[in-house]
């Protein structure tokens, strides 16, 4: 090839950043930093809560119910004289795990449906999408209530209910991404090599859809925390004795006049968690926009 028409192009190798370096570089985005800090805070609390808390979750630590915050009870006590600080910290465990678990399940279901629907197209797509439309037409909470009423309130059922209610929206997003990516020329090139559908879906299309799916999942984990606590608020969430932030707000709301901190502190805990997820998602999508 030495008789070529032009010199061979060569370029100094630019080292591509590895994953960790890329994640670490995100700290410069203030929104990402703030959101991640809040979430890391709650994860740490969830992990170490059992060794931090001063009382048992069902220990009637004080003879006095609805006590205002004090040195022994930093967040006060509830209707049974239990320590609210203890219950908020322990309650963090399920609020960190359950939404993430439900949404992971929803991402798996929704992505599979979206890939199938978007890639196959035609009547398969039409039917699947009408069903997804139908499910999405329900106000989320109404759907939960129906599912929970049907299968009963338990940890597993709450996870399933949230996953089922969340999956359609994810499948919609994935379908849209697939429709866009499917028409790209690199997919045509893969088809011209006779690649099997599984290769095209999982090696050509999915890796390019991962980023938006992940950012969307973060927002949805935030909303799932929202919904799980709302179920708790309605008394249909995770059954006792596990402390549930939503349930704690609901129980304490009649004690507003005595000690406003009793409903307020678990409420703020929920809010901070959701804010953390939304900040992180906002920041990441901003970063992805500018990187492109």
């Amino acid at each position, binding site marked *: 090839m030495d008789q*070529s*028409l032009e010199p*061979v*192009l060569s*370029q100094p190798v630019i080292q591509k950043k590895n994953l960790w370096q890329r994640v670490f570089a995100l700290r410069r985005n203030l929104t990402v930093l703030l959101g991640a800090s809040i979430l890391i805070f709650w994860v740490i609390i969830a992990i170490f809560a059992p060794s931090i808390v001063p009382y048992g979750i069902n220990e009637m630590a004080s003879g006095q119910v609805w006590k205002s915050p004090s040195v022994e009870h930093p967040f006060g006590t509830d209707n049974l004289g239990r320590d609210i600080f203890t219950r908020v910290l322990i309650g963090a465990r399920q609020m960190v795990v359950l939404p993430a678990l439900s949404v992971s399940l929803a991402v798996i279901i929704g992505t599979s449906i979206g890939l199938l629907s978007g890639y196959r197209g035609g009547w398969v797509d039409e039917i699947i999408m009408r069903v997804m439309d139908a499910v999405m037409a329900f106000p989320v909470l109404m759907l939960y209530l129906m599912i929970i009423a049907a299968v009963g309130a338990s940890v597993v059922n709450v996870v399933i209910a949230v996953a089922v209610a969340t999956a359609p929206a994810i499948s919609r997003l994935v379908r849209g991404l697939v429709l866009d990516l499917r028409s790209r*020329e690199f997919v*045509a090139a893969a088809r011209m090599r006779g690649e099997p559908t599984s290769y095209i879906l999982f090696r*050509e299309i999915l890796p*390019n859809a991962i980023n938006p799916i992940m950012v969307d999942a973060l927002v949805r984990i935030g909303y799932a925390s929202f919904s799980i606590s709302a179920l708790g608020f309605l008394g249909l969430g995770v059954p006792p004795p596990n402390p549930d932030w939503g349930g704690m707000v609901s129980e304490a709301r009649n004690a507003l006049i005595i000690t406003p901190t009793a409903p307020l502190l678990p409420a703020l805990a929920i809010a901070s968690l959701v804010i953390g997820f939304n900040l992180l998602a906002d920041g990441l999508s901003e970063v992805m926009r500018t990187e492109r």
Partner: protein
Amino acid sequence: MTPVLDIQNLNVNYHSSRGIARAVRDLSLTIEGGETYGLVGESGCGKSTVALSIMRYLPRQAQDSGGIRFQGRDLMQAPAEELRHLRGNRIAIVYQDPQSSLNPVLTIERQLSEVIAAHEEHSASESRRRILDMLERVRMPDPQYILGRYPHQLSGGMQQRIVIAMALLLRPDLVIMDEPTTGLDVTIEAGVLDILDDLRREFKMAILYISHNLGVIARICDRVGIMYAGELIEQAPVNDIFAHPSHPYTLGLLRCVPRQGLRYTNEALYSIPGRVPPLTALPQGCAFAPRCVLAESACTAAHPRLESTAQDHSARCIHWETVVEQPERVTFTRPLSSQTDQNSEKNLLNVRGLKVYFMQALDVLGIRKRPNIKVVDGVDFDLPAQRTLGVVGESGCGKSTIAKVLAGLTPVTSGKIEFSGSDFAKPIESRSSDSLQQLQMVFQNPDSSLNPRHTISQTLSRPLRRFKIVPQDQENETIIGLLRSVNLDESYLDRYPSQLSGGEKQRVAIARAFAGNPELVVCDEPISSLDVSVQAAVLNLLHELQHQRKVALVFIAHDLNVVRYISDEVAVIYLGRICEIGPTDRIFSPPSHPYTEALMSAIPVADPNAQINPIRLSGNVPSPANPPTGCHFHTRCPRKIGAICETHEPPAQEAGDNHKIFCHIPLDELRVLQTDVMVKM
């Protein structure tokens, strides 16, 4: 007399997280009243930034310094209200892509009348009269009707005429035109250029005409400035630029576009090596030095000044005398690989009666559908092994659909495709692995033809494995060999497409297409989205690979000169049908189909003294859902002979040597008509 526009030492920097991009550096130019100044350069060279700076409409992250004077007034210091008064009134601008520069929710009349209302006080009827007058000047058919339309209801060419009318409405003293005809089909472009050329003479305004197309510049400009990497590198009256280019880059630009009549059999196309430097990291000294054959240590040591080379002619090169006196030193090209044996008259590909109809809804709900949109409507052609068939036509003529059908990506409605003996008129999923290997494709858009998540070595290894070209242990070697064959080295192996320039991506895509040792490669507009200076390199490369590996090409493009350069045979397509097909030399000499003739005369020639035969097509391409009866071309044909064109499909007239013309006009008559007017073909 003060010039209309006087720019002195303009610098524009863009600040971003990647550093400071120096978009425009030390640019000075003046434009007199009535003069048209052409600013030429490739994408990213800063020419549009100059326009935005004059209009005082730079984005916030941009910072500029220097002086911009309009009729003596300093625009840089002008208060907002004065600027508002000047914009649209004394200084107007026309951009590329008229569709997006018109507001989709306002009527044409509203968008035109508000220009008058913003600057002058007139009664509604007077304002309307002026608008109608201007619409007639831009040769808008039925202006009254147009006024009530919304932008999306007009074709691209009509939209651009609206934008031009809008700019000229108040007879501005300076009009900036930023690639106003880029993106329009050549026949439409030719019409718009005619209008601009007439109006600039009539209105005697100053025009700053920005374009990457030297043909357009030659056609319309008095003086030309060439920009490279943010700098003006050469400036001269239009005749001098084309006659005595004095900067190696200018010379390269002129030589790297296939001139009319150039064939690969005559000579290789000159290509400028390398790529444009990033504006955030410009090289020391002369920005062009890394790509220049004349470069020596003096070039990188000091930044060259703009030197006067002749009267009114200046160039930013210390070797300008060499460039003028020995241009062949700069644009030296080795002849392309010699002809392979072309005796094999065995056809690799036979296409007969190919029809591709797209579905159209028949009722309101779209439940009943019928294949009714005749995208490809009965096409026959053959392709011998190792030869190149060029397919040329305007957008929407069905040429890309032909590529997709051959590739199996779009289903055939009816007709026969036979490829080395087997049936290829079936979708890709039912083709055998051997068939798949035999036919590969190079796509139009380099940005989407490589998977952004795969490294270059992953991209190239996949076809090797699928088609079992080499044993695993030789895979790496083969990939490096492939990269070298497209003039890239192994430093590219572990890169992702986002780290490559457009031209480099297209090289990788070409390597991928050739990796499986195919017999036929279908190229769908492979160079049209690349910058001019890298187009030639990719074109040469494609040709070299084809000859080395003994591959046949179907080369689809809208650019007649490019197709002519690379093809052995050419098919000219209009509205889903072939107008004319035959050996390249035959197609481009009389007799030709009237459509081919019109296409040829519409191409802007990069020579200000070119005498071209002004054949202009009227109207727009009809919809393939409802094509004209008889000859599809009769609604726009300048040589239509009568009712027979409307009622009868044209016969295939044999013009010898397998050259077929589908036209009712007898060949002898066509030849006489065309020999009279054709010049320098």
